[in-house]
């Protein structure tokens, strides 16, 4: 029993890092452009398909395929910012609608190119690590490690660099930020593209763990929004923490109670946390 619980605890952490990486994108985009980009799920899906295509069809080595996918998705992100999100900045409501529209468009693109038949990437890193009776698939451990590294790197970059300072400042008061000489438009573009790149990376690594279909993104973006909120919008490490809390509560909940209520376990947790801290676990109490 303890092995079962510990194993699922760890698995929860791993699954949580995936929520976390998308949540980071959600949090950053929201903080800086005032838009909850639901399309990040679709970007993640694009990343997964691009990776599959580059790796399984074209035959690039996996890391190259993932990097390629991140580049492709970033380009999509850049174009979407240029053509769409630039016009919805600071407008939560319209940004939401545009991102919902984009989900349909991306889904259609992928359907037209690859059909609804699920794709399953050739295994990149088969096998599992066995420690003290706990079995963890190697690929999951590797993926989680990459996500952790990226999130921590982002955290350091945001807290230690001027770009990060500018971002925080902008998020609070765009006009004052401009008065400080912060190129706000460029900053927003960088953040939008970076967030989509994170989603692309999420998708690229996702593809090595799970089968992919055109609709995979929607579930993850919801989880990511939940994680971001649970943590408190704007908190980088919080996005990770929120993701992990969700991941663990779902996995542990499914072990002890019916798995049919899997999604509910994280949500109940979320409600409880927000009741104690209405601004999110890591956010300010407002």
């Amino acid at each position, binding site marked *: 029993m303890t092995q079962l619980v510990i194993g699922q605890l760890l698995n929860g952490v791993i699954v949580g890092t995936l929520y976390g990486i998308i949540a980071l994108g959600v949090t950053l985009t929201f903080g800086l452009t005032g838009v909850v980009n639901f399309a990040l799920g679709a970007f993640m899906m694009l990343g997964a398909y691009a990776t599959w295509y580059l790796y399984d069809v074209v035959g690039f080595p996996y890391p190259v395929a993932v990097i390629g996918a991140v580049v492709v998705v970033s380009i999509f992100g850049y174009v979407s910012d240029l053509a769409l999100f630039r016009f*919805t900045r600071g*407008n939560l409501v*319209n940004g939401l609608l545009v991102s919902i529209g984009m989900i349909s468009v991306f889904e259609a693109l992928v359907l037209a190119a690859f059909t609804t038949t699920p794709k399953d990437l050739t295994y990149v890193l088969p096998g599992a690590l066995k420690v003290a009776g706990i079995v963890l698939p190697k690929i999951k451990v590797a993926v989680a490690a990459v996500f952790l590294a990226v999130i921590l790197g982002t955290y350091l970059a945001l807290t230690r660099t001027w770009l990060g300072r500018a971002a925080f400042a902008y998020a609070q008061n765009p006009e004052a930020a401009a008065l400080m000489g912060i190129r706000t438009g460029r900053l927003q573009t960088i953040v939008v593209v970076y967030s989509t790149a994170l989603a692309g990376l999420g998708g690229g690594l996702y593809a090595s763990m799970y089968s992919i279909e055109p609709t995979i993104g929607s579930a993850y973006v*919801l989880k990511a929004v*939940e994680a971001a*909120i649970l943590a408190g919008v704007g908190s980088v490490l919080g996005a990770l923490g929120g993701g992990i809390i969700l991941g663990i509560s779902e996995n542990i909940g499914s072990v002890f109670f019916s798995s049919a*209520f899997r*999604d509910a376990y994280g949500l109940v947790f979320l409600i409880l946390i927000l009741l104690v801290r209405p601004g*999110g676990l890591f956010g300010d109490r407002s």
Partner: protein
Amino acid sequence: MKHAILVGLLLALAVPAFIHSDSVLAIAVYGFMAASLAVSFNLIFGFTGQLSMFHAASFGVSAYVVTILVTTFGWNFWLAIVPALAIVVILSLIVGTICFRFKLKEFYFAVVTLAFSEVLRLITLNWNSITNGSLGITIVDTPKIWTPSGTFAIAGGVAWYYLTLALLVVVYGVCSRVLKSWIGRCLAAIRLNDQLGETLGIDVFKYKLLGFAIGSGLAGLVGAFYGFYAGFVEPHFLSISLGLDIIAMVLLGGVNSLIGPVVGALVLTALPHVIELSAELRIALYGSILIFVILVMPKGIVGLLTSRKHAA
């Protein structure tokens, strides 16, 4: 604007005289119900500033309660609406009290209401003995109304057309009365600056809750009818995607008006049936239209037509 709405209503009344297509009437019926949902949602969202994700739950719970009372316990349809609405209102008061007492705002509020809504959906989905789980419940009864010349079963497109049009008028009317009253002003104050509102003597908690409960209750009213027209209820009624659809309708039509959501709902309900293309192109076009409309008309369709902002 007022005249345009009246003309629209008159036209709507005349439609069944000219159009006999069952499928068109069906789109209209679903459109009216979607519009009712969107109008009631906008009371909470557009006019009070609370992005509730609980609307689908209010709708779905009521649909289920009415259905279960009628099909399992043999209640009269009209009678069953009463407890259904009571339950929805009580649920929304509970959820609202929790959220507003703890001062959850904006996206925090959205996600917590979404969480409650999902929990309710999962309960509906898994409470097999009462709700028949994922299969949902098939409804064969039809609501009847009593007229001096005998009872009349509401069956067929035309009857439902008028019934749901009346439903829309009722929902619209209630929202409009509420918004024009002092309550509407309190709601606007809450939406725009609740701290200021509070120092002006407005019980922010009470009015937030009131707006939320009225909106949710109206959604429940729609739910009561919906299942009986569709012929079934299923757990999907409580799904997030329905909530997102409603948001899209409201935004597309225009948040700052009462009529906007009606327009948005009718357009979005009809749109998929109007686009006759291959499946992929169809959803691509649907998405593109959403994007395009909002970029060209950032205030929604009605927002573009009327430049004057909503007044307190």
